[in-house]
């Protein structure tokens, strides 16, 4: 009889151990499952936010390349330091005016805020002067007319103008 009792107790003990082990295993599994589900939900949320916030990488790169191109084009329109001086620039402008039939009445190199600019007083036809202004506007390099005073002559289509012209220098 005691043997039977011992056997029963052993069976109960084994069952308790098995159930406990099973419970521990399931509890650990449930924790892992819960953690995995929580992490997955967080990742899904963050992925959704990231997908919303991230624009197209291709579009961003295309924009960057376009801006690079624009900048490169713009850079070529500035004079490099020492590439030109007021005198050679003045000669260039004088030649340009002469080629358009404009008479240079007077010109001088003046210093304004440490920069050398040229002041021209010219006269000629209005059409030629407008052509000159167009060439200045469309020149390959940036030429600056910082001030202009012009008076048209009634009837003859002539113009008298005084303007200050300079050039843009930039060190890249």
């Amino acid at each position, binding site marked *: 009889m005691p043997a039977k009792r011992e056997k029963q107790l052993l069976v109960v003990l084994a069952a308790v151990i098995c159930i406990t082990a099973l419970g521990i295993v399931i509890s650990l599994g449930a924790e892992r499952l819960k953690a*995995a589900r929580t992490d997955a939900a967080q990742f899904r949320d963050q*992925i959704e936010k990231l997908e919303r916030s991230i624009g197209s990488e291709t579009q961003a790169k295309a924009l960057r390349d376009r801006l690079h191109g624009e900048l490169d084009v713009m850079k070529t329109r500035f004079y490099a330091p020492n590439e030109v001086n007021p005198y050679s620039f003045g000669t260039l402008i004088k030649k340009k005016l002469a080629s358009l039939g404009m008479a240079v009445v007077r010109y001088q190199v003046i210093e304004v805020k440490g920069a050398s600019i040229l002041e021209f007083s010219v006269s000629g036809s209005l059409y030629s002067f407008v052509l000159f202004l167009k060439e200045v506007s469309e020149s390959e390099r940036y030429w600056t007319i910082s001030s202009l005073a012009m008076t048209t002559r009634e009837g003859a289509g002539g113009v008298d103008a005084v303007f200050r012209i300079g050039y843009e220098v930039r060190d890249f």
Partner: protein
Amino acid sequence: MIVLGYGEEKEAEIHVSRLDDGANLNGNSRIDGLLVSRLDFDLQILDIPNVPEKEVQGLIRYRLRSIYPGNPGETAFDYRVESAGAHQRAIVFISRKAILEKYRNAAPQRPLFFPYSLIEGMARRRKDVRTWFCHRDWAEHSVFRGGLLSSCRLVRKKEGERFDLEDVEDTLPEDERALPVLVIASPAELTDLRAGQRADNSSDMRYLSFQELTSAQRRLDGLFGEARRARAMFTPAARIAGLAVVVAALGVLVFFKHVWLAEASCDRLKKTHSDLVKQSGRVMAVQKEVDALRAELSSMSAEKPQDIYLLLSELTRVLGSAVQIRDMQVQGDSFQIEAVGSNPLKLMEGFRDNAYFSVVKLSQVVPDPRSSRERFSLSGVFHAR
């Protein structure tokens, strides 16, 4: 095919021969089992109550004292329980221990059989049937009803006399004789039995040789063997416990498969997230580059000189060809013009919706008495960088 030997006690030793043809077998011959002589073993049928299997053996041992005359201490038995619904019956195979030991020694490691072991499967399928298992020295008559053995009778053959099955049949109760009968014997005896069959015998009688019987056997359920004891070790409770363990293990596996799938899904999301974070870093770097480029472009655009030609073109477009600019002064972005034209107030409306111009003011208008035109001055700011 199963090769069965037949054992019988002769001169205090067990003599083994082949069951199908009666050929003598020496100890080295391979047999799959040994059919015991019914003259050395007894068979009893006991109706037993529906008790747990572990209690059946004790119950039979107790009942054996009243049905078997041998000394219980020298008696060995094995049993098979047959049940149909609530009805339970034990087929008890009984022998003296000394005889059983001799049989075991005659065919070591081989299972022992009764005729019952060979015919019960066939009878279970046919439900109501009876069999004659005829050997040289004995014949066993078994009656099965509903597939269960209901009676078993042993007939000793008389030495030197022909066994007349018809005469024995006449002694059987009427209800048993009405059942179809299967006669199992050696081929030679079957020939004799067929020859002795009366012409007016109307019973449904079929014949089967030992060879045909052994050929039909697929599984041998030996008696008095270790296998039985080993099987008995697995009590129903143990089987249920084992099943519970298997089910629990499968449940845990299924649950963990679920866990593993969730973790794998989480890992995939983590990888996607990581890729997106990397992509976000790259896009942000490109965006920073773009911002820097925009700032540089903006800075360079600020250094872009004022376009006087564009200013003149826009003024001409807004004022129209009828207006003649007499005098013009430009200082940085500001401009001031003196012109002659008609209705300068209306012309001012053209500046209002023009993005190039702002703060355009008409300062003075002097009508020209010589013409219908007016001399006017206007000033403003030009934005064309």
